């Protein structure tokens, strides 16, 4: 038998985690920009809802015309919900169409493909939030917030988006198909309506108040509202932060466990 020269691997070094993450974030952002329909929906829908609430329902809810100041924080969160729900679909697509097996045979940490989608969702949603706030100013939103209040508000919005996105990522990981993922994700989008987003919870039937007051969206909304319009913040800020961090941690654990089960060594 002829002697066989030993073949060296080229490139011989493993890709660093930083580069792996950067590549996947870049990929997900590119996919977001290409999925123009989802991108437009994520921006146009909340803007339309805001116009609907301020001009159509606003007069009935608050004849004084101050409703826009009340509703903006709610719209911002609604917008975050819409924008991050597509993460479930993106993740599910990657898990079901074969490309995940390509990533799994590379010498990289393949969980980064999910991290990429999460980072892109955060970027997408902050952009949409910016647009919503811009439109809010156009339709009469006025704020008492200074620089620090804005910073804190954006911080809590970002934390909320992050927690929600990881939750949708986990849903995408456990869903059997992209359309199932989109279906499950839809349920979460109803939560803002059962909160103080559009009307104070005190106006709801007593049994519903119990739900609305104790679900995570209400303290988050109240915190943003206080920061932007100067209403008393009370214990809302701590509750909001605790909810977001709690959901974030649970969703992270759920995602990592599901990813191991689906795309680990099985």
């Amino acid at each position, binding site marked *: 038998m002829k002697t*066989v020269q*030993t073949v*060296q691997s080229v490139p011989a070094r493993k890709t660093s985690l930083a580069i792996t993450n950067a590549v996947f974030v870049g990929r997900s952002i590119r996919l977001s920009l290409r999925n123009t329909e989802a991108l437009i929906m994520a921006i146009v829908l909340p803007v339309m809802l805001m116009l609907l609430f301020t001009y159509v329902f606003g007069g009935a809810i608050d004849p004084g015309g101050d409703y826009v100041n009340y509703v903006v924080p709610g719209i911002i969160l609604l917008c975050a919900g819409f924008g991050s729900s597509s993460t479930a679909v993106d993740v599910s697509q990657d898990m079901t169409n*074969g490309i995940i097996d390509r990533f799994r*045979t590379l010498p990289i940490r393949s969980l980064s493909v999910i991290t990429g989608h999460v980072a892109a969702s955060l970027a997408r949603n902050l952009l949409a939030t910016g647009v919503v706030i811009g439109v809010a100013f156009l339709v009469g939103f006025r704020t008492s917030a200074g620089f620090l209040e804005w910073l804190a508000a954006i911080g809590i919005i970002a934390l909320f988006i992050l927690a929600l996105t990881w939750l949708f990522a986990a849903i995408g990981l456990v869903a059997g198909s992209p359309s199932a993922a989109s279906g499950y994700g839809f349920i979460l989008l109803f939560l803002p309506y059962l909160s103080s987003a559009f009307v104070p919870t005190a106006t709801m039937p007593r049994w519903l108040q119990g739900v609305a007051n104790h679900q995570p969206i209400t303290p988050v909304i109240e915190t943003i509202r206080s920061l932007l319009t100067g209403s008393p913040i009370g214990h809302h800020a701590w509750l909001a932060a605790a909810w977001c961090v709690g959901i974030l941690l649970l969703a992270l654990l759920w995602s990592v466990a599901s990813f191991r089960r689906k795309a680990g060594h*099985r």
Partner: protein
Amino acid sequence: MKNTAITIRGLRKTYGQQTVLDGIDLDVPAGTIFALLGPNGAGKTTLINILSTLTKPDEGKAAVNGHDIASERDAVKMSISLTGQFAAVDGMLTARENLHMICRLSGFSSSGARARTSELLRLFDLEASAGKLVKTYSGGMRRRLDLAVSLVARRPVLFLDEPTTGLDTVSRRALWKQITELRDEGITIFLTTQYLEEADQLADRIAIIAGGRIAAEGTAQELKSRIGEERIELLGDDEELLAAYATDGSLQDIRRTLNELAGKVSPETRIRLRKPSLDDVFVALTEAKPFEGVLR
């Protein structure tokens, strides 16, 4: 120097009630092309997935490029490339973006990735459509891109699961040439195929898997000689086989057979000298229990 690129011992895999691999033993010499043949559902893809660390075996051991597939998975990943049976490319990216992404993930620098991407686009004749979204590609173009993507990094062992399925004749020939060249550079190629003449022409060694086990293993020549010698066949008007006689292929043996036949069959009868093909081997080894792997 290690001479064996892949060692497999007593590999078993069961899905639910169904035993797919029922004790596989194989040695693949380094720097050779090894073809795995077998009917649909025989477990070829399962075996490749186990060897490329995608799937866990239930029992048994295997080493790829000297690294254990269970305990040294990172080292195995550094030693292999895989083209799976189904294209694993990103439809929402262009071919160039797909290649560039995998280059970066495989350890190329940014400029190295750009150079390697252009090289592979040229090699796989994808330059004209390099900027189009892959979801608009035809099946064969997708397949070519998938192959290009798995050749991004140079690894000692290359797994190809039905690499030529869906390729036109020109692309298939080109791929055969590339595979042979890679082998000549010392790379070990482990491939599956449903085209037996492909295995016959390309592979240094062939194994046939049936009923969860290796039913036969050897060079194409060895496998063919297992099921018999050359035959003289008598054909009817519609080319149907009337009778067949074993022969060693020598002039005197053929003459003797024909002399014996002279008085017995009509002088118009047509004859054909036929060597056993890999198809004959395949059918003989797998037809007896065609669905065993599925029904067990």
